[in-house]
């Protein structure tokens, strides 16, 4: 579901709009089939691929799935677990058994306090949105330095680009380490000036991500920083 090459010829649909007859095709995300017709349920661009009709939403809330790499903030600490704000409708739970440290009962606050950021993975989500996180895994850790920028969840693919190409270009141009969480939070780490440059280009997604200005911003960044 790459949004990188969305062209201007794409059709914008509004909820309830009849997309077309359902003959031989399947309803993908953002659509429902009713009376042999497809109806859009979201505001977004119509997409048809491999006989699946779907709507690429313009705006969407983060819906956690197991396996997602996320950047979360500690929202609440108990004696044996942490609750994380993961930019979703519900808080996620990190039990001390899944933390990367040897944690004694009652000493959770010594490892992560309220407001701390951490890179974690979603272990499981049940049908009522209860989520369990894990921090056991390669690269999962507490984020002690750097900055976190938020972008709309539906524009993560735009930031990454085909095979992470766009993201690599930003990394190369700014000399920053960048980690994109699936929950729309991006961690940036580098020299303060480099971080400022990469933050600015990523924030264009936040401010005018629905327009095609991101590619222009990346090109401008490369032109500006390419010489030195």
């Amino acid at each position, binding site marked *: 579901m790459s949004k990188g090459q969305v062209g*201007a010829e794409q059709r914008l649909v509004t*909820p*309830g709009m009849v997309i077309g007859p359902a003959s031989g095709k399947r309803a993908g995300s953002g659509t*429902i089939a009713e009376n042999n017709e497809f*109806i859009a349920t979201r505001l977004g661009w119509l997409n048809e691929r491999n006989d699946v009709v779907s709507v690429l939403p313009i705006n969407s809330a983060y819906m956690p799935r197991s396996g997602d790499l996320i950047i979360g903030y500690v929202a609440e600490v108990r004696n044996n677990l942490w609750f994380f704000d993961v930019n979703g409708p519900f808080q996620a739970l990190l039990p001390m058994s899944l933390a990367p440290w040897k944690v004694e009962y009652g000493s959770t606050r010594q490892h992560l306090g309220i407001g701390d950021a951490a890179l974690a993975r979603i272990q499981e989500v049940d049908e*009522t949105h209860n989520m369990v996180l894990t921090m056991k895994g390669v690269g999962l850790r507490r984020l002690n330095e750097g900055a976190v920028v938020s972008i709309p969840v539906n524009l993560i693919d735009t930031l990454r680009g085909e095979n992470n190409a766009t993201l690599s270009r930003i990394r190369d141009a700014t000399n920053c380490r960048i980690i994109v969480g699936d929950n729309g939070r991006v961690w940036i780490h580098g020299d303060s000036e480099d971080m400022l440059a990469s933050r600015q280009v990523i924030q264009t997604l936040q401010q005018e991500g629905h*327009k095609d200005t991101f590619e222009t911003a990346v090109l401008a960044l490369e032109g500006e920083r390419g010489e030195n």
Partner: protein
Amino acid sequence: MGGYGDVKLLRDDGKRLDGRAIDEMRAVTIEAGVLPAADGSAMVTHGLNVAVAAVYGPMEAHPRKIQRQDRAVIDVRYNMAPFSTGDRIRPGFNRRSREISKVTAEALESVVLVERYPRSKIRVEIEILAAEAGTRCAGITAASVALADAGIPMRDMIVGVASGKIEDTVVLDLDKAEDNYGQADLPVGILPNTGEIAFLQMDGDLSIDEYNLAMEYNFKAAKEIHEVMADALKRRYERGDA
């Protein structure tokens, strides 16, 4: 109702006091995405009415007793600003705003795919900045544009429209004088693509024929307003106008 039968609301040339024909709607303009802090928002001006709607969520439903294990709840708060009418309105919830909040929430729950977000809450705030009869309809229209703007999945949008009866004539879209001194008012929430009705209220009496004519007007107006709604959403996200 009907106690003011001697007030003249139709001119001798058959037009209404503000010069509209009997099946003519007041001008409607809609702007989507007016509030930066909200997940979705919209402003609707319908004649002299101004309604702003903000949508937040889906989020965890609090207090926990309102959570539903199999679906989301929609929490609507309709409020009229104290300065929205000539007589100052005492700020805060009152019987009328509670009723309108409830019917609006029930109407929206019938279109939003609430089963996608169990245990959550979608908060819809409708603020009436200026009132001139028909605020609940303007509020519903604003709320459904704001929901679409927030990216919340819906079967269809809802258009709020009203017809009524003045001087024994069925007319579309009552203004303030017609609402106060007329004989009946019929606000409905229409799903423009399927033609279903999500809410319907009636104040005053209409015969079956009058009702059918009023609904015919309502459906005609709903189609027009829906075009404005879709256009507002498209304008908000048009590409390449940076």
